Structures are given as C-alpha cells and as structure tokens.
C-alpha cells in the first residue's frame, strides 16, 4: 500500500475516533477560545472569505452543509422545489430573527441575491461571483416567506451556491445595515442570523462572539467563542499547549510532531479535496506549447516522492477530477506519465531538434509561501538535472497572482476548486471561454490552453443535473487533460488543527476548516 493511501486510512481512523468521542452527551456552557491564524479583512456576509469557520457562526444562507459538502441541508429556507429546470422556489423559515431583532423576510433575501446577480454600488468592494449567481435572471417575491428564482439555463450548482462560501450567496444580512457594516471593525458590528452574534472586535487582537438566544435552530452549546489572532505558527501552538486557547488552527511543519506527542491535545485533519493543487504549464509559450515537451516536463519530476517530502501536509492527486468521488474514474490516474528521466530527456531533445533552435530559459514563478517554496525547489533540482535552464522566481503572493494573471510565467503551481466536491470547479480551470472557464486578466485560462472539444464537454456537463451523465462527461474531459497535459495534477492539501482534549464535537470538512455549528452537530466543552 502506498504511503498516500496509508495516510488516507489514518485520516479515516482519526475521523472515526473523533466521531466516537463526540458521541458523549453534550454539555452546555463555557467559552471556546480559538487561536486563529489571520484576522479577516472584514466580517460581512456579502464578502465572505474562503473560510468555513468564523463566518458561518454569524451568517447563514438559504441552505447549509451538513456532515460534508455533498450533504446539503435546509437553513434559512426550510425547503425548496424545482418546478422546471430553470425555476427554483424557496420557502423561507418563519420567525427567523436577525441579530438586530428584526424578522427575516423574502424582501431581504431578494435584495441580498440581487447584490450578487445584478451588481453592487461602485464604492463597495467587488464580490467574487460564481456563474450560478450571474445566471439568475429574476428574483420574484411570491409572498412574505416565498421567493421564486428564475435562471437563464439549467445548472447543477444553484442550490450549492446558496450554502455559503464565497462563490455563491454567503449569507443574508439586513439590507438596512448595508454600507454600515462592510468592515465589521471600526463600525457597526456585523449582523446576521447565525447561532452567534459578534459582541466585540478589537483590531489585531480578537473577536468575541456570544450565543444568540433567539436563534431559530438548535441553540449553541458554548456560551461564547473568542477568536484570538495569533499569526505565528509556533506561538499559536504554544498558546494551545499552555491552555491560553482551546483550539489552534493550522498546525504545520515542525509543530505537527510536537502536537502529536502532547498527551493533552487531539488532532483533527482534513483532506482538502475541496481544493486541488496543480502544476500549470503556460501553453502559449514555446516550448510549452508542444505537448511532447509538457509530457517530458512531467516525466522528469518524481511527483509521488515530492508529495512525500511534504510530510503529512499533502496527499497525491492522481488525476484532475480526483477530488470528486462520484465523478472520478481511478483508471484515468493510470494515464499520468510515469517517472522516467531518460525518456523525458529524449523527448526534450526531440522537441529541440524539431524546432531547430535551442530551448529558452524557462521561468518558474512561485509564491514565496512554505509548501510552494518547497515544491519549487524540488522542481528546480529536477529540471536543471535534466539539463533545462530555469529562472526560479519566488515572489510575494500578490505579485505571483499578477504575473499569473498576465501570463508572465512558463511553469507555476496553483490551487483551484470550490465547494460541494463538484468536478465543475476543477474542470473550469481549463475551459477557454468565459462560460466554461476561469478566465484571467489577459482573457485566457491559467494554462493559456484552448481545446474546443473540452469546452464542449464542460458546457454540456454544466447544463445538466443528472450526475451519471455529468460523471461521464467529466471523465471524458479528464482523459483529454491527461493526454494533453496543459497542467499536471499534483496534490490535495491536508489541514491539521489541534485542540485540548476537552473540546468535543468538532466536525472537519473538505474545506479544511473545523466546523463549530452545523446541522450535523456542534462543538462543546467537556470541562
């Protein structure tokens, strides 16, 4: 059994152990203090970040994820129906209160959806939009608790788009507070409908949330949650070991073995199938435009070994759709070129000879973040050993995004994905038109790769809801990607969080975040 598979098994055992532990009778009360890595830019449902912790405690959308991201359950909408492929009717829950005491109505939901589908005032920060939201043609109020949403064309992701995250409708806020609470700090405190309401936000220090006693669903078990911002990984772990915090997120590198050895701590890991990391080749530039060269680049690197070097922070992804269990065909993974330096070198020579000119220096651009730097160095070593000239550029993440957006790279490592473990998000990384692809600033997708057959498959998959049909379409798309290699599928990230042993009921999801309050359970303290 390969190490990655062993790691997966270990993760499953860990998850099972956690589930067994949380089967005790939950207790009410206490303050849960969390060592949180980065202070959010803002705490506003309209601009939710990619985190599934901190925001869902305050804001809710029409639906919510349960045990995992394939388990979609009712939230502010108690049910929904789809009378025809382009119409959804959401029945809102009655008696839902905002934190300011006012009742939620269909009018509030319509306004919040239209901010996303129709656009926002110019002086608001831009929102990240998923096509699902831009496909909305009309939002109609049927009565105080019922809305009808009409979309342009059928799509599989409409309901997922209403389960939070930053790709759909992250949450509903009272429109009368819009403009006042874009920040969350330095202004009015954020107002949502979630199980906790924000009591205090001290910039650079902490956020305090208190249980919202008028919450429509099961009331929170802990009285209070304090998010302490501790950016430094070592300091966060020490704060946990001392008991200054009850849960510390993102334990990495040297901290992992220390946390594992500490008898007072429990670890929670999640495989982020939610987001896959791939090595992108810029298909617009020669020699990357030659498929033989892309195959050669993939052959001369030992991808499996590189992932092992990341020591528990990653698990190998063998194909492009590997993160979506229902759409993935494991046989496609066998199409990935085998590690063969000699064959790779021969292919490189063939490309050079065919072109009749020497290979240029290749630019490998990497953000200067921990894991990305490790991978970049491993690739640099492999490429130069194969005789390639590499200009390795480690830049700050913003510069990297700009370089990537303008196609100023030959090789780069990047992540991509979305909620629901849906292959749609992986597939969209390679679509070459706006309706099927994630298009960068220069009008191309990240690998600057165009394949009309691929686009057509994704277009079909996007306009049907039948999972069997979709799975076949995505598997066909995956085969095209494997043959063409506009990029190389690399790994899934593993996020590990540590908590004191008395913290119970933590649910880990594909986002990599610990979920504190979901319909499938909630966190409590056994002190």
């Amino acid at each position, binding site marked *: 059994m390969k190490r990655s598979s062993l790691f997966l098994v270990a993760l499953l055992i860990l998850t099972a152990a956690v589930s067994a532990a949380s089967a005790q009778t939950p207790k009410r009360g206490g303050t849960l203090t969390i060592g949180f890595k980065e202070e959010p830019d803002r705490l506003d449902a309209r601009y939710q970040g990619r985190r599934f912790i901190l925001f869902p405690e305050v804001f809710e959308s029409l639906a919510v994820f349960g045990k995992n991201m394939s388990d979609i359950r009712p939230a502010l909408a108690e049910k929904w129906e789809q009378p025809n492929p382009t119409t959804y009717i959401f029945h809102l829950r009655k008696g839902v209160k905002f934190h300011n005491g006012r009742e939620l109505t269909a009018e509030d939901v319509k306004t919040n959806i239209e901010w996303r589908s129709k656009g926002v005032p110019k002086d608001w920060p831009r929102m990240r939009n998923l096509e699902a939201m831009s496909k909305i043609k009309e939002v109609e109020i049927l009565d105080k608790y019922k809305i009808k949403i009409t979309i342009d064309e059928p799509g599989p992701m409409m309901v997922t788009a209403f389960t939070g995250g930053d790709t759909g409708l992250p949450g509903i806020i009272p429109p009368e507070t819009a403009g006042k609470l874009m920040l969350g700090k*330095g202004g009015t405190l954020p107002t949502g409908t979630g199980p906790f309401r924000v009591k205090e936000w*001290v910039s*650079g*220090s902490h956020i305090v949330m208190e249980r919202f006693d008028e919450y429509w669903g099961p009331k929170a078990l802990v009285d209070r949650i304090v998010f302490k911002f501790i950016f430094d990984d*070592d300091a966060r772990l020490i704060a946990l070991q001392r008991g200054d915090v009850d849960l510390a997120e993102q334990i990495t590198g040297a901290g992992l073995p220390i946390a594992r050895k500490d008898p007072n701590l429990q670890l929670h890991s999640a495989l982020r199938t939610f987001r896959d990391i791939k090595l992108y080749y810029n298909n617009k530039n020669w020699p990357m435009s030659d498929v033989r060269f892309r195959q050669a680049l993939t052959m001369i690197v030992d991808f499996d070994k590189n992932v092992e070097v990341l020591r528990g922070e990653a698990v190998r992804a063998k194909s492009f759709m590997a993160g979506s269990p229902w759409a993935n065909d494991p046989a496609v993974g066998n199409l990935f070129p085998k590690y063969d330096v000699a064959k790779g070198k021969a292919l490189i020579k063939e490309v050079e000879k065919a072109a009749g000119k020497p290979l240029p220096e290749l630019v490998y651009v990497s953000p200067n973040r921990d894991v990305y730097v490790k991978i970049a160095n491993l690739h640099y070593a492999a490429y130069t050993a194969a005789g390639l000239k590499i200009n390795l550029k480690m830049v700050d993440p913003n510069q990297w995004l700009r370089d990537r957006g303008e196609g100023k790279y030959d090789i780069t490592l990047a992540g991509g994905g979305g909620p629901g473990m849906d292959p749609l998000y992986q597939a969209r990384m390679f679509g070459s038109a706006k309706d099927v692809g994630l298009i960068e600033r220069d009008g191309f997708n990240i690998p600057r790769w165009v394949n009309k057959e691929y686009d057509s498959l994704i277009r079909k998959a996007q306009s049907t809801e039948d999972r069997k049909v979709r799975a076949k379409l995505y598997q066909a798309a995956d085969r095209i990607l494997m043959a063409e290699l506009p990029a190389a599928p690399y790994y899934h990230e593993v996020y590990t969080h540590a908590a004191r042993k008395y913290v119970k009921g933590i649910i880990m999801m594909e986002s990599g975040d610990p979920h504190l309050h979901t319909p499938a359970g909630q966190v409590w303290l056994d002190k």
Partner: protein
Amino acid sequence: MIKYLLNRLAQLIPVLFGCSLVVFLALQLLPGDAAQVFLGDREYNQTDYQAMREYLGLDEPLYVQYYKYLTNLLQGDFGRSVRTHEKVLPAILERIPASLTLAAASLCVALVIGIPVGILSAVKPYSRLDQGSMIGALLGVSIPNFWMALMLILVFSLYLDWLPASGRGTPPDLKHLVLPAIVLGSAYAATICRLTRSCMLEVLNYDFVRTARAKGLLEFVVINKHALRNALIPVVTEVGISIVGLIEGSTVIEVVFAWPGIARMAFQAAQYRDYPMLQGCVLMVAILFVVVNLIVDTLYYYLDPRIKFAGAAHEG
C-alpha cells in the same frame, strides 16, 4: 524658551510637508495600483479597471492626486483601506496605544539596564564587570529577536507558566507586556549600554571632572551630577531615535507575540498592497519621528547649557 519651541514647531511644517511628498511619491513607484487591489485578482476587464481608476482618482495627473491627498490629510482624512475598507486614521489610532505602550515599556527595559551597566563599565573599565557587560551587550545586539522571543516564551510561558505567551490581554494588562518588552528592549539596552560607556569614558577624562574630584566631592556626586549629565546628550539622541525604531521596527515581535500594534498593520498593508493604509502608517511614523525629535531637542535645552545660553542670548 517659548520662542525656541515656536521656532522648532514652525520648522515642523516643511518637514511634514516633505514627508508627505516622499511617502506619496515612494508608493507611486511600487508595481501595481490600488485599483487592481480594489478589484481583486481576476475576473475584471479593462473597462472595469479604468472605471475603478477613475473612481479612485488614479486617472488624474500626479500633482492633482497629491494636491487632493494633501488637502484630505489636512482635514484628517487619510483615506480608506483598499483591503478592509475601514478609514485609515481611526484604524491606525486604534493600534497606536498598543504600539506606544510596547515602545515605552521596551524603552524602560533598555534604559534601566543600559544606563546603569554602561556607567559601571565606564567607572571600572577593563574590569571583569566591564568585560562581562560588553559581552552581554554584544549578545543583546547579535541574538535575533524572533529566536529570543520564542526561547523566552518556551521558558517563561510554557515550562514555568509565569507569563502569557501572546496577545495584549482582555482588558490589556502588564503581564502580557513583560516578554515582548524584554525582547524588544534588550537589543536597545545593549546599544545604550555601549554608548553610555564610551561617552562616560570620554567625559571622565575632562578637566571639569578632575576639578570636581580635586575639590573633594564624593565620587557618587562626581559621576552622577557632573559626568553623567554631560555624557547623556548622545544617549538622549539615541533614545529619541530608538523610540521610533521601537514602534516601526517591532514587526517580528508583534507577529510572534500577537501584539496588536502598528508595525504588524504596516507589514500586512505592504503584503496586500494596501497603499492608503501603508501611506497612513508610514506618515504616522514620520510624524512620530518628527515629534520625538522635537522633544529630544527640547531636552537638550535642559541638558546642554550652551543651547540654553544661545537661546537666552537670542531672547535678549
């Protein structure tokens, strides 16, 4: 004295004007612009970008942008953060107390250790005490502060459980201040110690010290009343510079100890290319620098009789 102060205050106007110009121009040289940050990193076209540049006033000539920037500054409007959209000045003012508290505490650590040890080293030069203190000073300057911070956290927070490891406390308390102040202050203590020692050694050889001793004054009085006051002038200058250094140079300490100060804020602003916030932080540090310099110059007035005589003669 009042005329001297007014004179110095008048000199601040062109200095602050110059600072604002340098800060404004320096940030124009950085790659990218606020419109890009505002729009995010993907999914916008050239029309969106131009519209945003227009909205933010980035399409106007540089001198017009600077004029507007300066006009707003004079009205206390430092702009809005392009990342968090909060107003820059209130955001900075919220963090300033934490930074000033840490700077003041670190300075106390630096002075309490640096000056007495420097004096003792100078009074007994080349003794074991002198050699020991100079080795200590060398270590204080050389040890990386992030390493020292982690070591102190391990010993005093984790193993001995005497002091908290991070944060400022809710509400802020002195216990949380101890470790960051020691780490930040120790490097400056070393500098002050070495400076005090060399200045004292120089002053102790002056004629007026010899005269004081010849008059039969107690050595304690000679050192503290005659020599120290003269030796302190360069030390006061160093302290003045250190205060600002302690505020803007404490990024690592603020990160390791999760201290909510202005240095971490500036660091994050630079990281996310939040130009208005970065401009605000840099300008605030420049203002602090100028104000501290004014205070130091005022202290000279008391410490150095020559300045007093010059002022008196001018007034007369």
